Each structure stands twice: as C-alpha cells, then as structure tokens.
C-alpha cells in the first residue's frame, strides 16, 4: 500500500480557520493593524465562525460532531449544546493543494 499523503480538502476547513485566525505572522509595529488587536476587531467574525448553526453551512459532514467541535475549538469558543444540523455536500470548498500530488488519497475509512 502507498503510504498516506497529507490532504487539503473541504473537511480540512477547520484547519484554515484555526491557522488564519489564530496563527500566522503578526507585525508588532505601528504601521500595521490586525484583527484581534483590540477587543473590538473581529468579534463578529469569530462569532460567525464559532456558531454551531452556521458551522453546518460549511457543508462539512459532522461525524459525531467532531468537525463542529474542531471548528468551535479553532474559533476559541465554548461549544453550544445542540445536535448536528443538516449534512450538505459542497464541492465548492475544495482547496487547491500547492504540492500534494493526489489529494484524493485520504486515510479515514479503512
């Protein structure tokens, strides 16, 4: 069997949320402003990303609510108590991978 290759797919959107909102280069200089710099910035954005109801709109499948938890965790909020919403299939969230040869090769279901 070929060894596992990393993937970049819609189910990895939680990674995008966490990486772009919580990580990445921060400039500590007067010339730059960034979201999260003050309490006022990015509040709505985080709330949007974190809310359970809207997470369903990512079009992600939620096996055992895992992805929802992960998205909420990435957004740094307490999970809301509720069951998973509709499961929608969306291909539009495919993220192009810069270096992966075969993004279809995922270890999830063996």
């Amino acid at each position, binding site marked *: 069997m070929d060894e596992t290759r*990393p*993937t970049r797919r819609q189910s990895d959107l939680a990674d995008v949320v966490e990486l772009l909102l919580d990580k990445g280069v921060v400039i500590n200089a007067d010339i*730059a402003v960034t979201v999260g710099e003050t309490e006022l910035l*990015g509040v*709505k954005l985080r709330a949007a990303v974190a*809310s359970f109801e809207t997470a369903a709109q990512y079009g992600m499948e939620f096996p055992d609510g*895992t992805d929802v938890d992960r998205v909420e*965790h990435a957004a740094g909020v307490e999970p809301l108590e509720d069951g998973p919403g509709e499961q929608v299939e969306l291909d539009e969230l495919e993220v192009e991978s*810069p270096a992966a040869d075969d993004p279809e090769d995922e270890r999830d279901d063996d």
Partner: protein
Amino acid sequence: MSVEDADGDRPADFETGRYLYCVVAVGDGDDADGESAASGDALAFDADGVEGESVYAIRADGLAALVHETDSLYDADDITRVREWLLDHQSVVDEAGEAFGTPLPFRFDTVVTGDDEAVREWLRDASDDLHAHLADLAGHWEYRVEVARTDDPEFEDDRLDELAAEIEAADEGRAFLLEKQRDRRRTELRRAADDDVAADARERLRPLAWEFEENDAADEHVAASFSLLAHEDDEGAIGEQLDAVAARDGIEVRFTGPWPPYSFAPEL
C-alpha cells in the same frame, strides 16, 4: 443572523492601507521608486484576493509582499462571507507558495497602513529578519496530524469486572453510584490508552520534524494533535509513520497539509 453590509462597521479606520497576504523571497531589485507596482520592474504576480480584490506584489530588497489595496479591516457575522474570505486569502498564499517557494504567511486581516511606499519601507526595515526567516523555512511546510479514536475500546480490566459484578447484585440506588465509578474507571483507562498512542505518535514523528508542536485536542475523541514543520521531502516518511499509528485498532489519523508555516510564523 444579519448579513453585514459591505460598507458596514469600520472598526479600524485608515484612509489608505495594504492588506497583507504573505512575504516571499524573490530576486534582487526594487519596484521603480514612486511608481505603482503595476509598472517599472515590478514582479509579475496577480491573483484574486479577498472580496475579489486584485492582488499584486510590492518588491524591495529581494523580498516581495503580496497585497491588495484596502481602507478597512474585514469583519462580518455572515458565515458564508467569512468562509469565502478565508478561502480566498488562503488561495492567494497557496499561489504565492507555488510561484516563490515557502512564504511567510500573515494572519488574516493584517493591514499595513499607508501606500506601496510604506510597505516598501517596512520591507527594507525588516529585511534582515524577513530574509533570515525565509531562508530557515525554505522547502518546509506545516503538516497537521490528529490521532483520534473511532470508538471506545473494550478494556480488559479486573476492576471493571468487579464493578460489573457488584452492579449486577446491587439495588437501583447503589447500582447508580457504582456505574458512576465504572465510568470514571473507563475514563482513566481510556486516558492511559490515549497517552500510549500519543507517545507512540510523538516518538515516530518528532525526528522527522524540524519543529514540533502539540495542540490541544479539539474534542474528547482526539488522543493527540500535532503541528509539524517539516521538509517537503519528508512528507512520505511522515505518512509512513502515520500508517503505523493508524494500524492500531480503533484509531484513525487525520493528516493535512502542506500548509504555509502559519503555526511557526515569527512575530516581527
């Protein structure tokens, strides 16, 4: 849920700003001073960014910052828009990575106040640092690994057997308390098993990572979560080690990447 108007709140006001995606190392040369990046010896890079804005490169000192023009930060409570923003932002950084090698990726919604010249000035000021970080990161990407349990394992454990027998013989009230004890015991055993899986994964992956970070588990099914900064040539070797981890019963591995090195990005 209200949809944010495009000209809605402006939490941070500035007349002129440059929204920053990433910085990459390029050949020598500056944009012709005082000219826009669309002329002179500007670097050919164009992509559609957040909100369809036109992304271009501002060059100084062998570095290029990929930016678009903006006069505000991005904030909205409409999840669809936010999702698009994040994916559009990421696609620009991905394109930059393909064109120029590993980029220094900035946090979403980072804006340099001022015009192209302000960005050039900043690039020159931070040039030594930026070049050093880019040289360190060259050829390396972030890979993210999550080791999770697909189901609760069945434990063979004397104490659990004892409790099961006691529960069988107990009246309702006592049985309830004993079941609480059994749950606690199961949790203990599960944690021990998780620690074992995590230790195994850590031991296998750490030698392949230039930098290695442990993340908080996103939920109770996750036994271990890591971010690795690793060379692209080691991707296959990491996958191989993860196959061994995933070969355990009831364990599945999520392996994503290659990402720009967000988790290993410096403060400047």
